[in-house]
């Protein structure tokens, strides 16, 4: 039994990063992190002698943490916080992955709260009375699609959303995050995702966008926030997903992207880092891990018959072990790495990464690989939008029936 876990393999110590006799601050931080993770693995190994159903996803605890957050949200006080639609999305998507239904009336309350974050000129803001911003717009649209009721869908003022997205466009086809705001690759993804989900995309809206996104691919293979910067997990997902949404994935160098992304999985820890020579962080389980289904799809479209039919091109077992053994907070919620505080952002992206690591879906092919006890299985997530597959289907059913404004 024990031998089926990578983290209990007696040879695992061979995969410490080491420092080749020349320690620097990067290698010292790396070693400290590996030490903490090794402690977790050792503790887990000892528990294996007395417990059989481990590692276990602590569903009850996570549910309690998430429901408390939701309660807090629905009180809908107005404050300076500028990421309230994000909180809605992170919590709702986490609950969705855990197959937890919202309490009576809650869906409606959240939808009404998000309606208050919508701006008269289109788009959603970080909170009521604030300026529209592409990130909360993406989050609000996702959250409303997860709620998935007619009431929720109808919150979105589609003609205004379309005008807002067009206003955020730069002449070259990139997107600024808000009026007078910064331009980076998140903008392209947030705009493309919201536009495609709600069926308001037009050709003019994304003219030149794919070319701009591709100019953010670096010599390492991943994408950067803007041309010239360093390849980074979050931005890389945004770049790839945007290209997929725009149907221009072939413009990027896919084998370089694959190499860079595959190399982000940590040989000892099993989780992903965001950039070369940086530390593992649970949230990159999705930002990096989520890129594999997209790359798999792109390669299979190109009729690559050498692709595996039952595994993504990363170590799905090792990622699940990292998430389940090192990233669960004792009091519920998931985290970056042992010792870090919990929050809804990490809870959402750790669970999303867990979903990707458990499920291979490719056309009609389905292959599930769950580490630990069977109840650890979470729902499938859509690798482009990162909401449940069912949520995408019902959103499409609703919005595709409406004409593009």
């Amino acid at each position, binding site marked *: 039994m024990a031998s089926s876990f990578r983290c209990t393999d007696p040879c695992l110590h061979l995969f410490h990063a080491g420092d080749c006799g020349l320690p620097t601050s*990067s290698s010292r931080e790396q070693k400290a992190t590996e030490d903490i993770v090794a402690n977790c693995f050792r503790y887990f190994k000892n528990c294996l002698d007395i417990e059989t159903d481990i590692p276990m996803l602590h569903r009850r605890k996570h549910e309690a943490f998430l429901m408390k957050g939701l309660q807090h949200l629905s009180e809908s006080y107005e404050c300076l916080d500028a990421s309230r639609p994000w909180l809605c999305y992170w919590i709702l998507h986490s609950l969705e992955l855990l197959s937890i239904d919202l309490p009576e009336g809650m869906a409606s309350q959240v939808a009404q709260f998000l309606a208050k974050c919508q701006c008269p000129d289109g788009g959603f803001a970080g909170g009521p009375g604030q300026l529209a911003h592409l990130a909360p717009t993406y989050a609000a649209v996702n959250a409303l699609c997860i709620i998935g009721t007619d009431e929720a869908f109808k919150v979105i003022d589609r003609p205004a959303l379309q005008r807002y997205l067009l206003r955020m466009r730069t002449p070259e086809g990139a997107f600024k995050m808000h*009026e007078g*705001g910064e331009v980076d690759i998140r903008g392209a993804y947030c705009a493309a995702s919201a536009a495609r989900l709600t069926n308001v995309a037009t050709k003019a809206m994304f003219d030149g966008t794919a070319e701009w996104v591709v100019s953010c691919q670096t*010599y390492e293979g991943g994408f950067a926030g803007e041309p010239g910067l360093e*390849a980074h997990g979050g931005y890389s997902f945004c770049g790839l997903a945007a290209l997929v949404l725009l149907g221009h994935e072939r413009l990027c160098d896919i084998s370089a992207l694959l*190499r860079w992304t595959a190399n982000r999985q940590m040989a000892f820890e099993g989780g992903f880092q965001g950039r070369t020579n940086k530390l593992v962080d649970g949230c990159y389980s999705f930002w990096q891990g989520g890129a594999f289904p997209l790359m798999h799809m792109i390669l299979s479209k190109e009729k*690559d018959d050498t692709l595996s039919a039952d595994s993504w091109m990363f*170590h799905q077992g090792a990622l699940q072990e990292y998430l389940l053994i090192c990233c669960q907070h004792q009091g519920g919620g998931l985290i970056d790495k042992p010792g870090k505080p919990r929050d809804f952002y990490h809870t959402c992206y750790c669970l999303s990464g867990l979903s990707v690591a458990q499920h291979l879906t490719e056309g009609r092919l389905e292959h599930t690989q769950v580490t630990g006890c069977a109840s650890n299985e979470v729902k499938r997530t859509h690798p482009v939008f990162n909401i449940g597959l069912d949520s995408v289907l019902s959103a499409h059913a609703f919005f595709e029936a409406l004409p593009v404004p």
Partner: protein
Amino acid sequence: ISHAVRDCYDYFRAILRKDERSERAFELTADAAALNPANYTVWHFRRILLKDLGKNLQDELDYITEVIHDHPKNYQVWHHRRVVVDWLRNASDEIDFTRLILTHDAKNYHAWQHRQWVLREFDLWDAELDYIDDLLEEDIRNNSAWNQRYYVISKTSKFTDEVIAREVSYTKEKINNVPNNESAWNYLRGVLLDTEMYKYSGLMTFCEELFSQSIRSPHLLAFMVDCYQEMLNAKCEDKEEVLAKALKLLKGLEEEYDTIRCEYWKYLSVTLSSKYAGKLEQSSS
């Protein structure tokens, strides 16, 4: 939620609704930004007031310097700085300022983003390569510094034959010191992006020497695989031998030296075999 936050927010919202362009409104944006520097609406309104009230932009730069020191990983404060520096058309503090931030966190993404903008917007490239040398001297694994090296060269001298030669030799030396440093290997690949690596003078020998010293860094093995693949692409002689060498390295990566990426290495093996082995059989039969 504390009373202070609540009062400040209510007040700010009232002022925003009235679009009040006053000194007290300006002061209020500082209070609100202090309570939540991620509130982009506050910063946006503050910029409107800066222009409208004709505020001293140098004072504003001093102010945002303080705020960034307290919140170095926040999007809004860096964007605010960029706008203010752009309005001032004076970037004399920016190189030192970003250097100071990078002293505390050498990989701060926002600081690098700001620095790159300043370099290109104000044409301040002259001392940048020296600065990067210092950073890499301090931490050869600092990938942000390697990336900046690539950026500066691509924007200045460009990767001419001489520059490529210089950079290859620089990187080889760094790899010799720390063979398992992925940043250096990635940079080497980047420098040789438009060059056939296997043909590059001395590079294969360099790899083979490391290999003969029992170095089995996955980055070394992967680099050698890529060289062999280039040779196969170029329809080299001894195809079978080259393919066998590549497949052997890939097998080593998959089963021994880099097992975390076993699926990836397996995929490369299968791809390589299906692309070249079939043709080999045909040509040998």
